[in-house]
């Protein structure tokens, strides 16, 4: 088994330790804050993890900041997936292979003994200029979307909603009189809708936002509001098998996660989405922030572990 520690000029203070895979209905979220990455040698180490194609893509980005962001995104994906010990193999981040599904969603190519079967490990990534997040699940498609809480919409919010959102969602937004609250609700709704289409693996174009409605039902006695999606395009299609979680992350972002409900559990029971959130500087530092005020659930049944 090859130790990749010797490939670094500075031996990492925090090698990627093997972790247990997420269990059903569990998401592990890892995120980086680009501003925390200033060391050129560390960034060069990350560059060495990328495939030639990924390196090329990084270099097509316009300007240092965008290149750094693109580099961190790929390094985050590779190092995150490499942490999950499968069959007692330590995984070299460099060895991971990716491909895109028919709609362009990246997925892991799973090397199995009998050839190619679908990877049990699913991941999805989202970034803003100040935060890049990667969510990992087992045996469930996942979509994740993060947006800065302060994100300003250039167009008029209601005009935008009327153009792209469903009727119910437009009505919900137009009933909010305070423009700042309305803007915040817009951003939250956008992240939920994006997380859904990313979980579907289809993206915005193939699942137009107008064709489905996200409803956030008010908090019940249990203290958590429920998030549900309905498809207006295909009312007969199963949309009640998707689970959502919306939370505030690092005090600066809204984050939405969408994953498939565990099919083995009783559908009548509300099973929470188990969530673990860690901030990372790969090879340097990992900090678990679940249960702190850096993760504040907003909607959906979330249990932080």
């Amino acid at each position, binding site marked *: 088994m090859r130790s990749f520690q010797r490939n670094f000029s500075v031996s990492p203070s925090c090698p990627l330790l093997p972790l247990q895979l997420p269990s059903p209905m569990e998401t592990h979220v890892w995120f980086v804050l680009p501003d925390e990455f200033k060391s050129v040698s560390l960034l060069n180490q990350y560059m060495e993890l990328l495939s030639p194609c990924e390196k090329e893509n990084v270099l097509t980005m316009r300007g240092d900041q*965008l290149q750094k962001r693109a580099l961190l995104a790929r390094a985050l994906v590779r190092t995150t997936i490499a942490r999950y010990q499968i069959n007692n193999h330590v995984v070299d981040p460099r060895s991971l292979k990716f491909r895109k599904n028919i709609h362009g969603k990246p997925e892991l190519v799973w090397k199995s003994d009998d050839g190619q079967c679908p990877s049990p490990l699913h991941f999805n990534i989202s970034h803003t200029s100040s935060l890049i997040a990667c969510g990992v699940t087992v045996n469930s498609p996942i979509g994740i979307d993060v947006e800065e809480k302060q994100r300003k919409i*250039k167009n008029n919010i209601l005009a935008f909603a009327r153009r792209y959102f469903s009727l119910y969602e437009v009505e919900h937004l137009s009933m909010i009189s305070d423009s700042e609250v309305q803007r915040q609700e817009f951003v939250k709704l956008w992240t939920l809708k994006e997380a859904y289409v990313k979980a579907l693996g289809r*993206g915005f*174009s193939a699942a137009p936002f107008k064709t489905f409605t996200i409803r956030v039902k008010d908090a019940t006695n249990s203290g958590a509001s429920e998030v549900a999606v309905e498809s207006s395009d295909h009312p007969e299609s199963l949309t009640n098998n998707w689970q959502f979680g919306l939370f505030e992350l690092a005090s600066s972002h809204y984050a939405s996660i969408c994953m498939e409900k565990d099919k083995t559990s009783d559908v009548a029971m509300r099973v929470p989405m188990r969530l673990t959130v860690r901030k990372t500087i790969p090879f340097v530092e990992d900090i678990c922030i679940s249960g702190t005020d850096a993760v504040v659930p907003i909607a959906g049944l979330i249990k932080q572990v």
Partner: protein
Amino acid sequence: MAAVSASCLRFQPLFSQSNKSSQAAASLKPLSVGWAKNTGFPSLKASRFRVSCAAKPETVDKVIEIVRKQLALTPETELTNESKFAALGADSLDTVEIVMALEEEFDINVEEESSQNITTVREAADMIDKLVQEKAGGGS
């Protein structure tokens, strides 16, 4: 003869389509470029002609102006026909906002299915010119 769905325009770079329009009938993706709308049968020559007849400079300039504003680019950032939105830092919300701003500016309607195909200044400008032309021609 393929049925062209006017409500689902999928923009493709012109040069890759001129020899494919005969296969369009079997293709799952309706090809809107290269078909002479009024006569209803493929016009290979017209599509080849259109390759050299790129988007109008005024359209390109307007697209660049809108992209600059949406992505808050510094004046030093050079934008050309070939500039890719993603390479300039646009995320999906930026791209949708850009498309909406273009719709309002040019009084056109872009189907969501097409928005994924707008990834560069050129693709946006070409699509705008096409939609504006169709609208002016009273197309369905």
